[in-house]
């Protein structure tokens, strides 16, 4: 649900921000000769049918028909039902990264590595890992990504004489100073509702919650790196420097709008959400790279999706060709940006197609330059076959911790999450390392 809202909001922004659509000449490559092929495509990105139209005009041999879906979750539920039933699945489906292992575990996706050719260097390493699950197979072509960035109210930090934090230590200091200036103000909130957000921050800290080791899954949710992230936030919540209320509530929206939420650790799609939820603050926000732990600059991913070929498709090669075209062809990527408002996963194409900053960030003309640099630093991260279980465990356990407001409760919550996730895998018969 939420991701639909985000995508929808982004569409509005991108549509207004990107005044010119690049108009390169149509690619001359002819599709592999398989005769006229009909492909069905389940997707929910806004206006994606307009992008598909471009393909259909240039490729009379492979006709793609879009069937609009309600969003990421319903589409996947429908697909899994069709897979279980043995028929009724489309050739192509838009799938969020964290859903891929679940789909692969249900044998819903085709391995397209043979047909896709060499795509690896077109995408940041972190994104690529999500569609290969760290192995040799390729289960989808990355479409869009959500590299995380730090958003802050430039005016308020300036007024308080505070520098933009570049490390987490500085972030904590700024958070304390912001809260000290006014007990109603916070630099951010720890949201127990957004498992994807926390996963993105664990990703930034250099860990991966799942891994594949030969014939077994590894689950490493309570790794040292994630524990560092959990106790950092637990500490800030315990001392009261950071809010403990969930994001995406009417209260949080009001806080963004009235200046009591001074910052937001979010992703590249944030301008859409901010312009929708905090319209009064246009031109007051700025984006910066995430505060860093020691070591190389890194960030995590929050959101994003890919185009996958289903295991029921009888035209896997043609479907792969379309998926590759849509996400790597400059004209197609430009259309995705203009029509659907996504942030493309393909690095070079993203840079070429995003030039003008979103209107909400008209005060920061280099918005997409910052985003492009950040997108290059996404750390690798592997999702497992029971992301749903881990994420709902996050909701419950971290809600308890955020309510308890102690650092130790945050660390306990992480351990509980690990335990629930491992137990679920073992109970279902997966090999767990």
């Amino acid at each position, binding site marked *: 649900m939420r991701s639909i809202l985000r995508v929808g909001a982004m569409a509005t922004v991108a549509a207004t921000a990107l005044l010119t659509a690049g108009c390169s000449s149509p690619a001359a490559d002819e599709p592999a000769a398989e005769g006229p092929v009909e492909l069905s495509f389940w997707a929910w990105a806004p206006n994606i049918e307009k992008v598909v139209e471009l393909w259909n005009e240039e490729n009379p041999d492979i006709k793609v028909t879009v069937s609009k879906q309600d969003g990421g979750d319903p589409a996947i539920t429908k697909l899994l039902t069709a897979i279980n039933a043995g028929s009724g699945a489309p050739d192509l489906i838009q799938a969020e990264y964290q859903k891929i292992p679940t789909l692969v575990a249900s*044998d819903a996706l085709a391995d397209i590595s043979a047909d896709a050719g060499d795509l690896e260097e077109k995408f940041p390493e972190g994104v690529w890992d999500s569609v290969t699950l760290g192995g040799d197979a390729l289960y989808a072509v990355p479409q869009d990504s959500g590299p995380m960035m730090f958003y802050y109210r430039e005016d308020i930090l300036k007024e308080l004489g505070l520098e933009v934090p570049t490390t987490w230590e500085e972030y904590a200091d700024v958070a304390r100073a912001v809260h000290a200036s006014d007990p109603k103000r916070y630099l951010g909130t720890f949201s*127990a509702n957004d498992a994807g957000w926390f996963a993105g921050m664990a990703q930034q800290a250099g860990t991966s919650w799942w891994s594949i080791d030969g014939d077994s899954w590894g689950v490493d949710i309570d790794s040292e790196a994630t524990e560092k992230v959990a106790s950092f936030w637990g500490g800030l919540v315990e001392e009261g420097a950071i809010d403990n209320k969930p994001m995406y*509530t*009417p*209260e949080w929206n*009001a806080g963004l709008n009235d200046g009591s939420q001074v910052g937001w650790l979010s992703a590249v799609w944030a301008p859409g959400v901010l312009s929708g939820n905090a319209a009064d603050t246009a031109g007051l926000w700025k984006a910066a790279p995430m505060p860093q732990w020691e070591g190389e600059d890194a960030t995590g991913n929050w959101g994003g999706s890919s185009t996958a070929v289903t295991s029921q498709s009888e035209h896997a090669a043609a479907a792969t060709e379309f998926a590759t075209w849509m996400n790597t062809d400059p004209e197609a990527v430009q259309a995705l940006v203009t029509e659907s408002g996504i942030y493309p996963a393909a690095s070079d194409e993203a840079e070429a197609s995003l030039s003008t900053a979103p209107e909400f960030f008209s005060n920061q003309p280099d918005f997409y330059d910052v985003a492009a640099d950040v997108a290059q630093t996404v750390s690798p991260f592997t999702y497992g*076959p029971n992301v*749903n279980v881990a994420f709902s465990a996050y909701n419950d356990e971290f*809600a308890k911790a955020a309510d308890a407001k102690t650092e130790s409760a945050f660390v306990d919550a992480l351990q509980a999450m690990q335990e629930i996730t491992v137990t679920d895998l073992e109970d279902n018969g997966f090999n767990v390392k």
Partner: protein
Amino acid sequence: MLAPGIVLFAVFMAAPILYTLYLSFQRVEVSGLGLGSGARKQVFAGLDNYAAALGDPEFGASVGRVLTYGAILIPCMLGLALLFALLLDSRRSRATTFSRVAIFLPYAVPAVISSLLWGFLYLPSVSPFYYLTERLGIEMPQILSSQLIMFGIANIALWGGVGFNMIVIYTSLKAVPNDIYEAARLDGASETQIALRIKIPIVTPSLIMTALFSIVATLQVFAEPTTLRPLTNTLSTSWTPLMKVYRDAFTRDDIYSAAASSIVIAAATLLISFVFLRVVQKRAFGQED
């Protein structure tokens, strides 16, 4: 003649129940990494799902919460419904039609909508109540905190449910012939005495019925806490038994253990209703015979 009824019952009641029963004895078994074809198959699970459901501390905790919730809600609900019905029925009441509609109206608001509405009122920074009390210098407790959330949810159900129960009781009051009251008045009974000695005993059967409805609704509470959950840290995804069923089936993708929990909940609801009726009916009607 009975054929349509039997067919409808078989297709829409019996078949789903039997299918749920079947599912509750199954489970999925994955081999190895669980990736690729044939890695996942449905196997017979015996009573494993039932053992897991009954042995799960989360399930026990959710049952405990629902019982506490019912202990708060049901007396308030029936007490208020009875009080309103008696007030509307008393001879001195004015504007009874308006009051009746006003009290009944919240019942017409879907639970999801009323929960959203109350959710806004419970959030201090967007709530007019908190705004006013802050201006007046009164410090209001946080209703969405772990101590008060139970009352917050009971309040939503109360707001939505009192009107319906009041109408049921009020209707049975209206069916009482006026002669009885006249006779009582001739004997010198006051309005209060009439209410306590005549009206309440007469409407006892409808009180029992509304109590039964309320018990069943309590055991099935789902919409209110589910709608409020994103607003607060104090509600878990397994806060009530039905929320746990929903989470297991649709979030955790484990329809088998959800089926087992559903069967347990249905059986418990049936048992509680039955016991309640047996106990209460004996006491209520036993004396009249």
